């Protein structure tokens, strides 16, 4: 049965959308990521207008993150205060990102903005993850101990310090806010939750204990993607609730299978697979920018 998407203004087969949501949910359960970085490009390849894909994916991530965050909350593995500080920055970033998105759409460079952000960000993160996971695999074979964390950094000299009890940290609020702003912008222009940026930033920059990292990042992702959804709906009218419904239904089911499959694989292997996946998406989008397109012309209809 075909369903008509009222905002994307196109017909899609509900099984395809449900399956797409399920596949992304499976991967997000497997790797513990939101999967927005895969969902947005896949929707665009499928023919959904880029602005609808970006905005609707944000609501999909809200749903999958709530599912995950509730599980972490029950284990008390969540630093609410840190999450709130980062979300405050994230809201600012999201407002800026949606504005940037609107401006770029008007001047016709929105596709470039989305593609280029993906190539740069996924290329960098994928490359770092690949080298890190390869090193970890080599270490686990060689038996050498992992490198020790540096005890003190320049960040401890910043003002506006705050105590984060669950994270056992006494640090300036500036780094978490800046990270939040950055991730908020990503959420608005790429339709991603930004977990693949927040998690490493929390571990390596803020030096939060790993047990609260997952829950806290999910908490901040919920706030930011929910705000992004509402902002995109009010500014660009680009959130498709029918598309969101089917993607979410597929996603929450797929995620459960993903979690179970993930329990059978080792952490380093998972990270290696995820790194390869991230790099593949970046490469695919890079090819789209570099290769001569079949048709040099694009047509955008402006509502009268």
């Amino acid at each position, binding site marked *: *049965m*075909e*369903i*008509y998407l*009222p*905002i994307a*203004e*196109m*017909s899609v087969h509900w099984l395809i959308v449900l399956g797409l949501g399920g596949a992304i949910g499976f991967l997000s359960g497997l790797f513990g990521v939101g999967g927005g970085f895969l969902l947005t490009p896949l929707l665009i390849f499928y023919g959904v207008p880029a602005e609808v894909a970006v905005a609707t994916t944000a*609501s*999909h991530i*809200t*749903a*999958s*993150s*709530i*599912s*995950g965050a*509730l*599980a972490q909350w029950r284990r008390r593995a969540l630093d609410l205060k840190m999450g709130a500080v980062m979300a405050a920055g994230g809201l600012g970033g999201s407002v800026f990102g949606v504005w940037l998105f609107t401006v770029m759409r008007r001047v*016709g*460079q929105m*596709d*470039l903005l989305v593609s280029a952000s993906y190539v740069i960000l996924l290329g960098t993160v994928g490359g770092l993850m690949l080298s890190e996971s390869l090193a970890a695999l080599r270490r686990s074979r060689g038996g050498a101990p992992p490198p020790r964390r540096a005890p003190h950094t320049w960040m401890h000299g910043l003002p506006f310090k705050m105590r984060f009890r669950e994270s056992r940290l006494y640090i300036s609020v500036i780094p978490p806010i800046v990270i939040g702003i950055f991730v908020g912008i990503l959420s608005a222009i790429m339709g991603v939750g930004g977990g693949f940026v927040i998690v490493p930033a929390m571990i390596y920059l803020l030096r939060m204990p790993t047990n609260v990292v997952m829950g806290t990042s999910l908490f901040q992702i919920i706030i930011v993607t*929910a705000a992004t*959804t*509402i*902002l*995109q*709906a*009010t500014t660009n*009218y680009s*959130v498709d*609730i*029918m598309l*969101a*419904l089917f993607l*979410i*239904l597929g996603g*929450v*089911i797929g*995620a*459960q299978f993903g979690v179970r499959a993930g329990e059978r694989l080792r952490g380093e292997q998972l990270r290696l697979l995820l790194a390869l996946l991230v790099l593949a998406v970046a490469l695919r989008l890079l090819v789209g*920018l*570099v*290769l*001569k*397109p079949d*048709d*040099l*012309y*694009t*047509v*955008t*209809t*402006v*509502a*009268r």
Partner: protein
Amino acid sequence: MKRPAAIALSLCLSVAPAMATEDVVAGLSQDSVQIQSNYTGTDIVVFGAIEHLEDTGSNDIVVVVRGPDADMTVRQKQWVAGIWINRDQAKLLAMPSYYFIASTRPLDKIASSFTLERYAMGLNNVEPARAISHHDPEPFRQAVVRHKQDDGLYGEMPAGVELQSPTLFRARIPVPATVPRGTYDVEVYLFRDGTVISAQSTPLFIDQAGLELRLYNFAHKKPFSYGVVTVLMASFLGWLSSVFFRRNE
């Protein structure tokens, strides 16, 4: 805005009755198309008859269906610093969002290119009311025609009008799932030896219906509430799945 075709049509009609007695009457299989959740595209059947047919000369029927006008921005990619990015652009104001033309024979066999241009018949003659561009807008116009053809929203059907008898004709016009909403104009022309001797115009309404219409209106009239509802739906489904699957473990 008055289109050249419409002006030409009214001019022609004021003269036509004096020259010929032949007339065309036409109807549509349906006055309106409702786009609902299971809408995958349909066909509109345009049917009609030639009245007071005279045996001499050759008669041809041309059916033109035009969708509501829209402004289009066409961008051209150029190779800059190793990547292809949008550089050049043209704005085409008031291009039809949908254009299908069906005829009994290929258009160039029916009338001269001058006549076809005057009535805006054929994909070569679909023009915007105005083009804003730094140079020749023709490649940009052609790009629109090409894209719209790929989307199934523009088309020429040189044998699309079938004559079931010397006086009865019928044409099937596709209305794909991606059609824009609005008031369409169905024009039926009777050609005799290369000139229009009769014409008729009928409106066709295409609109979303039911849930789709309500969602579309909700999203555009109360965007904030719509965004909040989407987030609440997402939150509820997320919560539901966490409750449901926890019980299974």
